[in-house]
């Protein structure tokens, strides 16, 4: 007896659905230019050259550093951070980080959007920290 496929319609339909789902990454991105974000540094950041940590460490670990800073400031009222090179910084997102990196949309948001990360830093720290600083004083 020749081998024969049973319920061919259903099997083929199911397999077509499977292939469509399994190849999602390949067809979803067709025709969409999706270059990796290029960071734009402000002149001030360029002039500074070195951030608090090295570029690789900042890329992978800036969220952890900010969290440590926050806890240190809020719980121990300690605002002094000394990095591995012995340089000291004021632990403050608004006044230290965003002082150089004042271009949030081009610096922070680009990568966060690309990697689909939504940090809640901005729930409190608004885009233009300088304005609030002046308002407080």
């Amino acid at each position, binding site marked *: 007896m020749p081998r024969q496929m*049973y319920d061919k319609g259903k099997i083929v339909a199911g397999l077509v659905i499977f292939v469509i789902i399994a190849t999602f990454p390949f067809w979803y*991105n067709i025709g969409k230019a999706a270059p990796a974000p290029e960071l734009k540094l402000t002149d001030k950041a360029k002039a500074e050259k070195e951030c608090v940590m090295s570029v690789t460490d900042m*890329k992978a670990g800036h969220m952890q550093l900010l969290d440590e800073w926050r806890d240190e400031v809020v719980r121990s009222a300690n605002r002094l951070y000394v990095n591995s090179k012995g340089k000291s910084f004021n632990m403050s997102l608004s006044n230290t980080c965003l002082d150089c990196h004042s271009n949030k949309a081009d610096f922070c948001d680009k990568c966060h959007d690309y990697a689909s990360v939504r940090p809640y830093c901005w729930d409190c720290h608004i885009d233009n920290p300088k304005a609030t600083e002046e308002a407080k004083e």
Partner: protein
Amino acid sequence: MNKNYMFSLIAVIVLFLIAYFGVETAGLHVLFGIVIPYLAALIFIVGFVYRVRDWAYSPVPFRIPSTCGQQASLPWIRQATYDNPSSNGGVIVRMILEVLFFRSLFRNMRFELKGGKKLSYIWEKWLWLFALAFHWAFLVVVIRHLRFFAEPVPFWVQFLEYLDGFVRVEFLSDVLQVGLPGVFMSGLVLLVAVIFLFLRRVFISQVNYISLASDYFPLFLIMGIAISGILMRYFIKVDIVGVKEFTMGLATFSPSIPEGVGVIFYVHLLFVSVLLVYFPFSKLMHLGGVFLSPTRNLANNSRAKRHINPWNYPVHVHTYEEYEDEFREKMIEAGLPVEKESN
């Protein structure tokens, strides 16, 4: 010690060492980052289609009513419409319950002879609960990973991430920091569930007895995937933008090797690739197989409808009518009763 799980564990450790030294020592980034993942995706898709197509060549001519409720009979006997469906609609509901909620597993019970005499049926839902947690968590993890394979990230992936990260746990200790970035529940649930499924095979003696290396291997492999993923997210941080650049390169067929992404990423990638390659050849094919379970996807209508076996041999039948036609006169002569007096 059991040779089955030791064998599987060693296999996974060897895979880890291959990825680790292959990238760290030998610098085979292109092999582990591009060649193997592409091959794995190809083998997974082609192998999956091949297996399912192969199954479709097996005829299932008859209904297999291994059911769990009253079948359709007389109008005044209430039918269990979903547990013993007689219509396609009922079958669809039964399949949905099976595929999404593992209804068959929910029936799981434990039997014990109490005091050597009294048979008792014991409520046992742990396997169902952890199996459900495992599969759903795995699905969520897979969908979440689409953020690396789609640009812009679709809203439903972002929404799932929001739900998954709903519980915000953050705590800091001097040694390690947990909770940054935000904790995704699915990864942790996946790891806990897969550990449960493993321990079940180790500690329940009857299950242990029937467990083979091919049962332990996927469990260890998935454990490895979950652990390497969790490590990458919370402990040994990697440059996530670099990772996405790389995965997007794979998805758009313009692969390039990212710089400065740690070796742990390649370990994760090799584990996933091996899982994909292993998939079509193993019990993991139950992903496709569950839809083809004959005891679940056929309506129990054997009494209402005649199902004919397609490979029945064409038997020549000599019916009684033909017999009587042939011998009628001789039968009447001998005084035997006949149904018709003449042709």
